[in-house]
């Protein structure tokens, strides 16, 4: 890649997102940006529509249950610019609600439904927030750390 690249990915992200980016860190081959909870849909929209970022591909949307917070992690990719961006949103435990980004990428649909099933994270504005992988009417959220599997007896 010897074409003139005047700005780094961090610079482009900083210019497009402005104060919405709470922190930015380069981790190996991707740039991890923490986005404020109320700004995630706008941040994703800007990442997709900004011609220098051109993030047209939502690769993965995961929920993570940390002791003090939930995190929703968006692994994003630009197929034309070939750069990788990771957005992270922190959610408080007592109210794990965040805007849905299905309006930006339709491919967020089932990932968000899965995060709702597994963690109880609610995505406002989701077109179809039904259970995806669990049984209908199942109230448990299995991937929470508080949901314990039956004890595995250690034999090794």
């Amino acid at each position, binding site marked *: 890649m010897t074409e003139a690249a005047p700005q780094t990915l961090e610079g482009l992200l900083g210019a497009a997102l402005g104060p919405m980016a709470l922190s930015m860190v380069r981790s190996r081959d991707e740039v991890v940006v923490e986005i404020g909870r109320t700004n995630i849909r706008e941040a994703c929209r800007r990442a997709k529509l900004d011609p220098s970022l051109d993030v047209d*591909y939502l690769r993965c949307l995961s929920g993570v249950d940390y002791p003090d917070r939930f995190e929703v992690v968006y692994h994003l990719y630009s197929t034309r610019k070939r750069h990788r961006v990771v957005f992270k949103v922190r959610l408080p435990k007592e109210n794990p609600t965040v805007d849905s980004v299905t309006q930006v990428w339709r*491919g967020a649909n089932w990932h968000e439904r899965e995060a709702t099933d597994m963690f109880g994270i609610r995505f406002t504005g989701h077109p179809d927030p039904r259970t995806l992988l669990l049984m209908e009417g199942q109230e448990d959220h299995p991937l929470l750390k508080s949901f314990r599997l039956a004890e595995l007896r250690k034999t090794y």
Partner: protein
Amino acid sequence: MIEPKLQTVDMMLNMGPQHPATHGLFRMVLTVDGERIVDCQPHLGYLHRGVEKLSENLPYEHVLTLLDRSDYVCAFNNEWPYVIALEKLMGVSVPERAEYIRIIMAELNRIANHMLFYGSFGADAGALTPFLYAFREREYIQSVFEAVSGARMMHNYFRVGGVREDVPPDFERRMAELIPKLRRGIEECDELLSRNEVLIARTRGVGIISAEDAMDYGMSGPSLRASGPAIDLRKTEPYSVYDQFDFDIPVGQRGDTYDRYILRIEEMRQSLRIVEQALEKMPAGRIRARVPRIVRPRPGEAYARCENPRGDFGVYVVAMGGDRAYRMKVRSPAFCNLMALPHLLRGSYVADVVLILGSLDICLGEVDR
């Protein structure tokens, strides 16, 4: 001739979860108006086995076996991104011989997977003979898998830093016998089905998705490439030593069911090219980097992705010290491809449903995890 006062009502047609053509335990509730599909509601989760939850409770090495079984057809390809993610976390670099062995196994697995796709696609269309031809080719490949890893399907062969053990001493001889057989087999399979006019009539122009819609849904693999974008992780985000190989990425033009089918036939030929080059270039040396016996990555996160036969398979690992993962998320290509199913089915006929679903080449084990 429809009488002016005739009232019609959309009918709800349930397909699955027990159904021979849904490629696993999968339920679709179709709303049909006569023969036309108005809407489709997919219902997943019948094969959800809690891989992600189990991975938080089992040591890292044990989780590898879960990934073997999530997409049970592409076992080698599933193990790969997981070990790459752990290698990123531990800062381990893989010896060259191990990379070549990994590539040979992954590409043979791609041929095996596409053969299964070919056989079941023919069966979906009503052609039952290609299924037997496809499985004959798979048997040849699975004998090699058994010789190398000890198992025909659930290999448990890749390790952090390389592979579990070296290839057997008669590997060169086995491959020298296998490659011409596969070459002949691929051509035979192509000849048997690809220019059959019934198949073409049933699949040309059926289930079209545009490139923008496919990207928006997060589709990947041959299902995406059939619509035009030449996105193959082996070329666009090369991993391992794929940048040292000479191969082409077949790309479709119309994004219909036939393109998705014929692309996979061509991919088999390209995989065979890669396998031949890898056998020529494979160096001697270690097959595994020096790694501690119990895998304990430093705290951190890593996301690794590989080009699975079905598409972009990714593994996101969050490590907080210790011998088990804090969180492992599996990005399954079949899951993302299946999201586009309602889009593909709306407007098509009931008779097309099975072929459109088959052309996406899903594996419910991977969709549900």
